[in-house]
């Protein structure tokens, strides 16, 4: 053993190096134009996305899209940034909706979609796309900046069996917040479920969609779409009233706080919470895991709100085109063609049916309903209907706040403090506005044109 350690180690190292060199990918010998597409979807959604890329490759012989998983959306963002700074950014990167402001502000790093369409002559018409979906990713004058791809919205999931047990009509789910609270009370009184009401993605459901549905601004400058000098307005009377309602519900035992982001998703399919506001994408899991009759309905609104309810806003991600010193016009055309491919009604329809994300094109929706899909899967068209029930207003087009993740975390923290009983609803929202505005100002400063 003595004599062998040194040479053995050396041998291993040399071997590893040799094999490493041998395993290095060969020089690209294909004639197709190569497009690198980085995405942040784990299995099984990632697999479905990559299948679309594979189908595109098989459908023609000029271009090849190579899709690779770069981790979570956050990690994909870091990868794109690192690659851009190193001069080898991918052609397409999938970025979540809260990163929209960051991406849009990175004017030298991205190529806006409308520019791409114009330069390459590839036909991408905003009118083909669902207005609410498209608006999130467009400038105020309607020019599309990124390509919508996987969008979802929130709905209210409810447990029909629990409703029955509590003496509520399972076919008449609550429409207003007042009704929701009353239903939760009855459910707890009859102990039909351990928790009456819960919500996932706290800021998305309770603040962002609340503002949109009630046609109330979340921030100035059309929720940030019109300028970087936007200020938060989430301490308005409506918002304070709503947070207070939630605090009251928690005190009376009808609300259970399930945690940030998607943590509360688990509470509905397990039967723990009888009513849960969560992403429409939760459907697949509910179908698989719920051992009770369930249904879906729209998000609620407060009685007597003028003009309510408006459309909800989307979550999810879109596809951004990145620039690079090595980029050629042919490569941009390849990207354009790929985008046209995914906008085909049948491709869009299949993606919607396979994943539960909403159709991004109006034609796609038509194809799906034409096939009778919504008759066989009642409630699957609810997200789409909620998104399109009205023409988007300035307050319901979406959001574009810089450092949105940080802002969301700030709001979540302040909400949590209130839920822990450490501050009132007004204090929480005032504090959130103050801290959030500081973050927005920092973003403005770093991204001055």
């Amino acid at each position, binding site marked *: 053993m003595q004599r062998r350690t040194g040479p053995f180690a050396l041998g291993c190292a040399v071997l590893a190096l040799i094999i490493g060199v041998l395993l290095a990918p060969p020089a690209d010998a294909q004639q197709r134009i190569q497009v690198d597409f980085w995405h942040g979807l784990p299995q099984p959604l990632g697999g479905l996305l990559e299948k679309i890329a594979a189908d595109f490759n098989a459908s023609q012989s000029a271009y090849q899209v190579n899709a690779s998983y770069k981790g979570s959306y*956050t*990690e994909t*963002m*870091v990868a794109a*940034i690192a690659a*851009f*700074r190193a001069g080898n950014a991918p052609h397409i990167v999938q970025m979540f909706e809260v990163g929209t402001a*960051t991406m849009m*502000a*990175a*004017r*030298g*790093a991205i190529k806006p979609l409308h520019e791409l369409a114009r330069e390459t002559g590839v036909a991408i018409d905003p009118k083909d796309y669902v207005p609410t979906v498209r608006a999130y990713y467009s400038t105020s004058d309607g020019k599309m900046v990124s390509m919508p791809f996987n969008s979802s919205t929130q709905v209210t999931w409810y447990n029909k069996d629990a409703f029955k047990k509590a003496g509520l009509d399972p076919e008449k789910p609550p429409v207003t917040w007042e009704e929701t609270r009353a239903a939760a009370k009855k459910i707890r009184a009859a102990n039909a479920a351990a928790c009456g009401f819960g919500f996932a993605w706290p800021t998305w459901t309770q603040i962002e969609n609340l503002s949109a549905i009630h046609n109330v601004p979340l921030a100035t400058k059309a929720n940030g779409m019109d300028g970087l000098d936007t200020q938060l307005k989430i301490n308005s009377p409506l918002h304070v009233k709503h947070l207070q309602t939630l605090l009251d519900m928690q005190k009376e035992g009808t609300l259970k*706080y*399930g*945690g*940030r*982001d998607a*943590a509360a998703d*688990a*509470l509905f399919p*397990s039967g*723990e919470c009888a009513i849960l506001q969560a992403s429409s994408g939760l459907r697949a899991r509910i179908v698989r895991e719920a051992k009770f009759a369930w249904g879906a309905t729209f998000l609620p609104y407060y009685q007597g709100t003028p003009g309510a309810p408006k459309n909800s806003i989307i979550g999810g991600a879109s596809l951004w085109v990145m620039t690079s010193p090595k980029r050629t016009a042919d490569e941009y055309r390849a990207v354009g063609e790929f985008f046209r491919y995914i906008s085909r009604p049948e491709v869009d329809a299949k993606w919607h049916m396979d994943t539960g994300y909403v159709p991004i094109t109006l034609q796609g929706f038509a194809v799906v309903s034409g096939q009778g899909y919504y008759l066989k899967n009642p409630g699957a068209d609810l997200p789409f209907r909620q998104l399109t029930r009205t023409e988007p207003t300035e307050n319901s087009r979406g959001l574009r706040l810089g*450092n949105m*993740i*940080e802002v969301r975390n700030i709001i*979540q*923290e302040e909400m*949590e*403090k209130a*839920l*822990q009983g450490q501050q009132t609803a007004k204090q929480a929202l005032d504090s959130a506005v103050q801290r959030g505005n500081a*973050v927005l100002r*920092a973003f403005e*400063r*770093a*991204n*001055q044109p």
Partner: protein
Amino acid sequence: MRRRVIFPNKVLPYVLLAPQLAVTLVFFFWPAAQALYQSVLIQDPFGLRTQFVWFENFQAILTDPLYLGSARVTLLFSGAVTLLAMSLGLLFAAMADAGIRHTRLYRTLLMWPYAVAPAVAASLWLFVFHPSIGVLGRRLNALGIPWDYKLNGAQALLLVILASAWKQVSYNFLFFLAGLQAVPRAIVEAASIDAGPARRFWSIVFPLLSPTTFFLLVVNLVYAFFETFGVIHALTGGGPVKATETLIYKVYSDGVINLDLGSSSAQSVVLMAIVIGLTAVQFRFVERKVHY
């Protein structure tokens, strides 16, 4: 520490050091310098617009009450993790070395946690302690103990301390055991003539173990300061309300999640200074007590 007996060669040491220094210069110092330069800039994430701001980033973080809160959490967290992981590691190593049968079996069984990747370890702990679906989490609540680390800061901190220490105990165990087994048998046998096992351990064996202990102290502190963010990220995300946001977590969350590279780099500089300070202190004062 002073080496009295050395070799006289003057060129050879540089040759021996060359590989590590080369790798360190290219893959550490050069990128690190760039990362640290970032701390005096305000820049958008893509590097398209840069402003040079001297020490503004530093000023901002050192006067930020949230940053100071984070420092407090880190102190508590690192102290607890190091203490727990090292004492348990030592305990198990001492027991495994106690001349009993099946030492190898115990050794194998206690080494497992180390093999687990942080992301995977965190999902295991999540699986067990989640208040709604966790096997133990649910039972705790059923027993009437309000276990909810998503809202209760103290419980969240407890959970991440346990999860982080869990992974590190095996590491310490491994090295303590290697160290114990390197203690010359003759010395211990001689001591057993007039000292019981406990006294033997603390007066003879433990001091001989001190080089290992010192090594582990440094490594554990570095681990607790730097390598624990993966576990925190997966279990609590720094919450609730920043109860588990350690300094390294803040570096990560400000840099990678919030994309504020300037502030994040400034925080890294401060963190680096703290850890260098801590280890310098250890080298100067603790190493004096190390018996070589």
